[in-house]
């Protein structure tokens, strides 16, 4: 079983650059700078069919070629380490376990698209990651692996760290750009895409931590090697965080296309209590899977065929004690808190959704509550401004699909809406959270 991203984690001392170099570290960068042109690098990444590991699954090579084609300068590279999706902590462990691998991947990206400045945007809660990366940058600069004239070529590359301040929506790339500019972390309208006009309105390439960690091994071993791992359409491995009612929660790196059943019973050691009821794939904004999907391959394209998304890599496994209405109430509470407020569909929609699930939990929902929820979720999916708002629909729609019967038990068929009259306007303020 080969690991790519986590290959060095736990084997080398992450605070010692010599140990990383000893494990073939910075070799890919050396080879690239001396023997390969930027176009070669982009071609290798394209041929490897690597797709972004942040959740959306956009082809990395294609993204880089857009940034390369942009005429304006300077260009910027941003490593998105604002890992806010509940249940996801893969990026934290990559940054803590092998910080130099990320720096090397970023330098390779910088060379490929022609950028000399890079930022790592880390969420404020990840103190250890901030410390380790700060030290890694300093060490690499000392050895001339970052900074001016790397490997005695005329390529300069500087990496700086930016620290977030607690906002989920900042994981969305345009919101992240606003936050980096010292503004409220609200998403921007696309287009223009960041490759055209990003940080400080300059061409910017944003990738996830895990994506950058894949680059150096691909350049070093070639795309043929990479394509042998995983599935035909999505090669490579995926790092998952597995959590919930299982015997061994934690982090695994497995080839693309593995099934949920294998993850639970082979890697996680089975259920810790109760019987398997459902799993949420990809964090709080992810789809809820019932036992019907235990054998579906976890891979971007296969899941898309089933109408689902792989998301960020969190897999939350739940037993039969958890009620779906209670769980979704908790999910919605999270969205109410994290909705940035820019668009009203998300700001008001999440709040209404939260109230509806609270009623379902107490078994006093209106007679047509499920219909209303479905309608609202579909509206969110279609009209919310950013992917975050749109993704609120995923857990709701999949729960309605697989656990509609259980949810229907929370409906009180006799409870009708009170008609709105002049004497009885609905302006009662509902206290929330």
């Amino acid at each position: 079983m080969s690991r790519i991203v986590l290959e060095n984690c736990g084997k080398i001392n992450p605070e010692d650059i010599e140990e990383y170099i000893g494990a073939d570290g910075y070799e890919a960068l050396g080879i690239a700078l001396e023997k390969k042109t930027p176009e070669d690098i982009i071609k290798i990444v394209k041929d490897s069919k690597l797709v972004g590991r942040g959740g959306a699954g956009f082809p990395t090579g294609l993204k880089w070629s857009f940034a390369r084609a942009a005429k304006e300068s300077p260009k910027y590279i941003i490593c998105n380490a604002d890992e806010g999706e509940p249940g996801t902590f893969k990026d934290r462990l990559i940054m803590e376990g092998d910080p130099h691998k990320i720096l090397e991947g970023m330098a390779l990206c910088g060379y490929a698209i022609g950028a000399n400045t890079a930022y790592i945007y880390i969420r404020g809660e990840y103190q250890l990651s901030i410390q380790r990366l700060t030290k890694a940058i300093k060490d690499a600069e000392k050895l001339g692996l970052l900074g001016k004239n790397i490997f005695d070529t005329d390529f300069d590359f500087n990496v700086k760290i930016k620290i977030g301040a607690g906002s989920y929506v900042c994981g969305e790339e345009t919101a992240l750009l606003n936050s980096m500019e010292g503004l409220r972390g609200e998403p921007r309208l696309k287009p223009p895409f960041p490759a055209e006009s990003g940080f400080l309105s300059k061409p910017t390439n944003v990738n996830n931590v895990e994506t950058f960690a894949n680059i150096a091994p691909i350049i070093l071993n070639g795309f043929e090697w990479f394509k042998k791992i995983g599935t035909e359409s999505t090669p490579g491995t995926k790092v998952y965080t597995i959590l919930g009612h299982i015997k061994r929660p934690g982090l695994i790196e497995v080839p693309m296309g593995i099934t949920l059943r294998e993850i639970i019973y082979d890697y996680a050691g089975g259920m810790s209590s109760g019987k398997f009821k459902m799993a949420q794939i990809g964090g709080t904004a992810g789809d809820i899977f019932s036992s019907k999907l235990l054998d579906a391959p976890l891979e971007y394209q296969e899941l898309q065929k089933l109408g689902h998304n792989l998301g960020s890599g969190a897999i939350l496994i739940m037993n039969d004690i958890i009620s779906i209405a209670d769980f979704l109430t908790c999910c919605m509470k999270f969205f109410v808190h994290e909705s940035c407020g820019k668009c009203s569909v998300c700001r008001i929609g999440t709040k209404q959704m939260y109230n509806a699930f609270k009623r379902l939990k107490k078994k006093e929902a209106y007679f047509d509550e499920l219909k209303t929820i479905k309608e609202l979720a579909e509206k969110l999916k279609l009209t919310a401004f950013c992917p975050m708002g749109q993704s609120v629909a995923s857990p709701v729609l999949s729960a309605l699909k697989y656990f509609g019967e259980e949810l229907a038990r929370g409906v009180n068929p006799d409870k009708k809406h009170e008609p709105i009259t002049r004497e009885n306007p609905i302006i009662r303020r509902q206290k929330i959270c």
Partner: protein
Amino acid sequence: MTTKEIVKKYGNKRENLLQILHDVQNQNPNNYICKEAIYELSKEMDIPVSGIKGTASFYTMFSFTPRGKYIIRVCESPPCHILGAQTIFEAIESKLGIKVGETTDDGLFTLEGTSCLGICGVAPAMMINDEAYGNLNEKKICKILDQIQERERK
């Protein structure tokens, strides 16, 4: 460090605002961004007061009200929720006699709910300032809080 010195350290460009706000908050003994600091920042950085407050209030890590020396942040996201985060809140509330968002009378602790802390492998989890604690239960929480209280008494 004064507010002026912090601005000087990072430069007065708008893109450094978050970093500056972090430092301003950290050097305040009550862990918050006070009104005077906002006015000073506005002058130093040439950003309207509303601009600074509007940005800072967007982020959950910044506070405009005085807080305790130790900020307890308990994760309330789904992974911790299904493993009993609610009981963790209750345990802390009964132990310290404060509710979420409140500070103890001795100014030692502030209790806050937070989104995922990224330590779900050991859920339910919480952070006290920069220190993370996992696999919590009532007994463990009492022990952790007792230790801090003891340390402070000395």
